[in-house]
């Protein structure tokens, strides 16, 4: 345990709670060799005190790494109570961060050819279509949807609830676009831009922008994930 509980205190005393940032949340490493009450106090101090500015207001997953410590039911309750006092943190696990493969980027699915009416692509990850997506065809992806061609069918990005997902197409004229839980259809009088476009979520609203804005969109959405 000692190797992951990196010491950050200068006075030589080991931190009883070490906070580490990972891609999709925070890991709280509880020191093994201290009483539970001390650890809990330290945790409260850290969350309320010096580290409060690190929590930028967006919701984060908290993974607690309790090490070899056995938590009694009451202790666990007390621990969860401390986190519950901070609306931004959701306790997602007591056994450290999720195994690496769960949040490694998933392999994209690449389809070459015309996706025709009645055909469906459903994939956990990004979907890339090199060809047209005709009206009546359907794409459902847990990640982004990219169409190198005309998007005239329906596309659902972030099907698992990822509000950061986008739908992009060279010719963006879809029947219907969904991102996470938001559904939109093309306005009747939509004049297509002469360049590639993508749709993304801006709060509850869906917006369509030029491809050059995608990088900015990515940057902005990333920065809202506080990484410590």
């Amino acid at each position: 345990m000692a190797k992951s509980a990196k010491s950050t205190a200068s006075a030589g005393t080991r931190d009883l709670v070490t906070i580490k940032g990972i891609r999709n949340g925070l890991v709280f490493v509880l020191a093994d060799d201290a009483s539970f009450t001390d650890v809990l106090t330290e945790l409260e101090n850290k969350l309320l005190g010096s580290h409060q500015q690190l929590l930028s207001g967006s919701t984060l997953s908290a993974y607690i790494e309790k090490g070899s410590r056995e938590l009694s039911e009451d202790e666990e309750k007390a621990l969860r109570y401390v986190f519950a006092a901070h609306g931004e943190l959701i306790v997602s696990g007591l056994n450290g961060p999720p195994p690496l493969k769960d949040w490694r980027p998933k392999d994209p699915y690449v389809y070459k050819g015309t996706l025709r009416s009645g055909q469906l692509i459903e994939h956990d990850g990004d979907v890339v279509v090199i060809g047209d997506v005709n009206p009546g065809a359907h794409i459902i992806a847990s990640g982004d949807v990219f169409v190198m061609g005309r998007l005239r069918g329906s596309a659902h990005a972030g099907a698992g609830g990822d509000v950061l997902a986008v739908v992009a197409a060279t010719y963006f004229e879809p029947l219907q676009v969904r991102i996470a839980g938001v559904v939109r259809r093309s306005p009747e009088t939509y004049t297509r831009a002469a360049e590639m476009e993508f749709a993304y979520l801006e709060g509850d609203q869906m917006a369509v922008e030029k491809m050059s804005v995608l990088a900015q969109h990515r940057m902005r959405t990333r920065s809202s994930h506080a990484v410590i």
Partner: protein
Amino acid sequence: MGEAIVVTSGKGGVGKTTSSANIGTALALLGKKVCLVDTDIGLRNLDVVMGLENRIIFDIVDVALGNCRLEQALIKDKRFDHLVLLPAAQTKDKLALSVDAMQTIIRNLKTQFDYIVIDCPAGIEHGFRVAITGADQAIVVTTPEQAAVRDADRVIGLLEGEKLPPAKLIINRIRPHMVKNGDMLDIDDIVGILSLDLLGIVPDDEHVIKAANQGEPTVIRPDSRASIAYRNIARRILGDSVPLMNLEEDAGFFRRMRKLIGLR
């Protein structure tokens, strides 16, 4: 060894039967041995359009069930040297014709004829599955309407799932003045969506309805635009390169002048 061509569309009423009859007849006029096969069990029409209804004794289901030999069910069209019709059954159930039986029939026909033109029923269910089995090539017929194009797209997707070469497209019943006014889908739009090779375009023509009611395919008389269109299609099937028909009815002096100076 002949070639089996299935004529399909997904949507009903776009002109599968008319196209089958005319393509088959046109191929026969060009000197090929042709067999027309109607697979629309229960709703047979091809015999009516060909004017051979009164000569049906056995049908395709009889052949499939072994009630008669294949040759007994073939109706020879006496107007041509080498055109026969294998009619569908009118009173039997759609499921009476199985995929296996159909394959056997088509394989047999291919040994005797140059071209087997299969008229497919509307829809994408059992009848469609049976009709496309054993075919070497598919022709998809559509009209310049959203619904027909949508259904054609669906059918093309299903055909791609079979081991057929890419289907060929016929756009039927085009009304040039409506296309020009933007009230009808453009040929380029349709080809753009379906991304298939265009086998031919057929203008909307009253002669077709008249001829069908008289029980003779339009192509017999070369005096209508639809007839020329179907003859062109038949020649393209044989591998000739025939330019697409010009649908502009009468160019007129002013339009020609404007075209000349680049105003279109």
